[in-house]
C-alpha cells in the first residue's frame, strides 16, 4: 500500500535557528577539544623528502620520510608485537590526482624491554619509511602540496607518552609531457 505524505516545508526561521544551534554547539565542542589539548616533548623529528619532486601526470612519486627518535626512547613497530601497542603509521592527506600506491616500513629492532615479559619490535634511532604516490593521468600541470603525518607513540623503559604525530609537508611539481 502506498501512502502519500504531504511534508510541510520547514519554516525558514526554524532552519536558521537550527543552523545557529549546530554552529554554537560545534564551536563549543571544538573549544573544549582545544582547551584540553596538551603537548609533549618532541621525541621524534621527521621530514618528508621527495626523491622525484618534478613528475609527469600518470607517473609515480617516490617519497621518503626520515625520522630521528630521541636517544633512550623507542616508538612501536608498524606491526607491533602486542595487540595493545599503538603502531607507527605514515598517513597522507588525500588530495585530488594523487593516491598512495605503497608505504614500506623498516623492520623493527627486537628488544626485551624492562616492562614486558616478551620481546617487542620497536624503532629506535634513525629510521626511513619509503612511499610511492601515483599521480593520476590527466592531473593538470602545476605545483601541489603533499601533506602527511607520521603518527607514533613513544616510550622509554619506565614511562610512555600519549600518541601524537609529526606533520609532514612537501611540494611536488606536475609538468606536462612537452615541457
Amino acid at each position, binding site marked *: 500500500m502506498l501512502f502519500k505524505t504531504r511534508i510541510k516545508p520547514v*519554516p525558514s*526561521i*526554524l532552519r536558521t*535557528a*537550527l543552523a*545557529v*544551534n549546530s554552529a*554554537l*554547539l560545534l564551536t*563549543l*565542542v571544538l573549544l*573544549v577539544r582545544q*582547551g*584540553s589539548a*596538551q*603537548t*609533549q*616533548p618532541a621525541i621524534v623529528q621527521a621530514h618528508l623528502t621527495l626523491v622525484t619532486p618534478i613528475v609527469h601526470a600518470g607517473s609515480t612519486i617516490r617519497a621518503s620520510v626520515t625520522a630521528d627518535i630521541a636517544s633512550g626512547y623507542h616508538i612501536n613497530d608498524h606491526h607491533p608485537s602486542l595487540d*595493545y*601497542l*599503538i603502531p607507527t603509521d605514515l598517513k597522507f592527506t588525500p588530495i585530488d590526482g594523487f593516491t598512495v600506491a605503497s608505504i614500506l616500513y623498516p623492520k623493527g629492532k627486537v628488544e626485551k*624491554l*624492562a*616492562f*614486558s615479559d616478551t620481546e*617487542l619490535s620497536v624503532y629506535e634511532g634513525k629510521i626511513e619509511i619509503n612511499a610511492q604516490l601515483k599521480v593520476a593521468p590527466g592531473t593538470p600541470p602545476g605545483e601541489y602540496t603533499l601533506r602527511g603525518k607520521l603518527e607514533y*607513540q613513544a*616510550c622509554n*623503559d*619506565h*614511562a*610512555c*607518552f*600519549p*600518541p601524537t604525530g609529526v606533520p609532514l609537508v612537501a611540494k611536488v611539481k606536475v609538468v606536462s609531457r612537452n615541457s
Partner: protein
Amino acid sequence: MSKQNKIILVLVVIAIVIGGLYLANRYWIAPVTAARPQASSGKYPAAPDFSVTDIFGQKLNLADYRGKVVLLDFWATWCGPCRVEIPGFIQLQKEYGPQGFQIIGISMDDDVQPVREFYKQFGMNYPVAMGSDTKISELYGGIIGLPTTFLIGRDGRIYDKVPGAVDAERFATEIKTLLAASPGEAVKNFQPAGASGNIEVETPAEANSPVPGVDVSKLNKIELQRYKNQLSKQNCDCGCKFNVLQCRTNDPSCGVSRELAKSQLEKFQKLNPRI
C-alpha cells in the same frame, strides 16, 4: 513572525542554552567544581578534589575518600609500563584496603571500551575513571608521561609523586607510613622510598585560566591582554623555542614557563597596585 514561529524560536533558544550548559558542565565545570583552594603550595600540597563518573557510570569523588590513604594512578591501556604496575596495585588494594587505603585509576585512553575490557581481564579491584576529556590531569600539574602516581595521605595532602613505573614494594613502604597516621593527621618528615617528581598542583582558577597554570582572575580584560603581551615577548628557557605564552598554552605541564609566567604576573601586579 507568526505565533507558531515564535514558539519554535523560543524552543530552539532553550535547546541551545541547555545544550551549551550541559557541555560546559560536562567538560569544564564538573571536574573542577569540587576542587578546593590550595591551602598552601608547601612541601605537601593539598590534593585537588575532583568529581567524575567512573568507567561503569558510578560517581567518583575524591572527597569521599578523605581520611583514607589514596593512591591516584594516571595510566593508559596502551602504556606497557602502566600495565606492568597494575597487578601490584591490585595486590596493594587487597592488602591495605581494609586498613584505610584506596587506589583510584585515571585512564588517559581516548576510548572507554578498551579500559573496561582491561579492567575485567586483569580483575581490577579499585575504581577507574577516564581522564582524557576532563581537567583532572591539569589539576595535578599536567600529566604527560605515564604512569604518574600520586600518594595522598589521610590529611588529603600529596606526599609523593612518582613518574614512571616502579616496584609495588616502594608504594607499600610509603602506604604503611601514611596509614600509621590518624585520619586528618599530617605526616611530618615523610621520606619517599625512592626518586620523586616535583609535586605541582593547580587551583581551579589556574587550571581554567587563559594562561594555563597562572591565576589571572584578578586582572581585567585590558590588563590580561597587556600581561599576555608581556609573556609573548619573553622567551621561554625550557628549550621549547617558544615564547612564555606559547609554551604555557602548548605545554601546560612545563614547570619552567609556569614559573616565568607567575614571576611576570608578580612584577605586573607590583607595577599595577590596583590588582
